[in-house]
């Protein structure tokens, strides 16, 4: 096993996933590119959403990529951190909202 499972240099190899399945790889990259084009949302807004999601899914490659993308777009560190908090709030909220299940079950089983 490599010293570090996630090597930042491996991000450069991302396009090579098409080597083992050209059709699906091409379709993915086409879709990916289209998603981040300017639409009802600006490219800047999409970059911040991507940064927040990168943290929620805990993808080191995505965090590197969208921190850099944000810098390129002039996004400030305050904006980036707020976006990460928005993601973190949803993630922790998703955990905490399950407490209602716990409470319901607790009440049902208890006198």
């Amino acid at each position: 096993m490599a010293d570090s499972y996630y090597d930042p240099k491996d991000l450069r190899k991302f396009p090579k996933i098409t080597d083992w399945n050209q059709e699906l790889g091409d379709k993915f990259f086409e879709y990916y590119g289209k998603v981040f084009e300017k639409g009802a949302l600006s490219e800047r807004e999409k970059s911040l959403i991507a940064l927040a999601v990168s943290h929620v899914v805990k993808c080191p490659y995505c965090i590197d990529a969208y921190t850099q993308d944000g810098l390129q777009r002039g996004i400030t560190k305050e904006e980036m951190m707020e976006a990460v908090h928005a993601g973190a709030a949803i993630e922790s909220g998703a955990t905490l909202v399950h407490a209602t299940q716990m409470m319901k079950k607790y009440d049902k089983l208890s006198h």
Partner: protein
Amino acid sequence: MATKSLLARKKLMAKAEEQLKFLSNGIFKDELPTFRHQLEKIEDFPLKPKALEILQLNLGYMCNQVCEHCHVDAGPDRKEIMTRGTMQQCLEVIKTTKAHTLDLTGGAPEMNPNFRWFVEEAAKLGVKDFIVRSNLTIIRANKKYYDLPEFFKKHNVHVVSSMPHWTKGKTDKQRGSGVFDKSIKALQDLNAIGYGLPDSPLKLDLVYNPSGAFLPSNQEALEQDFKKALKEDFGIDFNSLFTITNLPISRYLDYLIASDNYEDYMYKLVEAYNPAAVKNVMCRNTLSVSWDGWLYDCDFNQMLEMKVESPIQHIKDYNEEQLQERSICVSQHCYGCTAGAGSSCQGSVV
């Protein structure tokens, strides 16, 4: 933040020869293609000039600022200044050149003691677009410079100024403490006499270069963000924003190496290489003149001491027709001008 140039600090990357050696070894030995190789692939080697449009004069490396990423390694300790004699040789060239744009740069060109005399003389020669690259803070640096906006207006000078971000934190980090506030005041002074206002003939453009080891994003989108923020926060207007990619030379190269970003940055530049940008790189329509009168393909080649490959190498011997026959000198730093939408002193080129 450093207060002295690399030269004064006796740093290795102050030497052009060392920079070129560094840029031609390491990853460019066995991992990444050289810039020359890219040109050969599109049959554009040797790179040849197109019609000359811009004559860029570097009036000296002295500057009141010591910016983190300065490709000139400019600063208060730099003493290289164009003399009136060399300026007179430049004026002779301006009289006959086919270039429609005269572009004065530095350092801070305003710090040259003969700056005003030269602008007055050059303005009489009817240059179509007369650019002064002002760092803005010089206007507020000393009382003797307070009237520069009026002076620029009197000679119909087109002002192009650096502004790395619309927030104080990012600007001061790159250009020095207090730079943002002084720049805002200088922009307001320029606006007050008509510069950068809608429908005004007095042009005020801003130059953005990234404050770190990343490439600039889309020029139009950044221009919109700059315009919105500077208008809302400070009531400032300007005409256009030029995005410039930081080229891996001088102080920026030193920064990339020291911060362990060099390899990643060069990969980014090579991955973003756009053959379409080669068609319009600025070295093809520009000639750069150094403070001591030597001729270069661009200001970056000047800093790397790569003189034009021509029998005519000095302004005193200037012959435009002969210079147009030269081949342009290239090295790995040229990737900075061909990444993405390309980069030049006039912004994107694609």
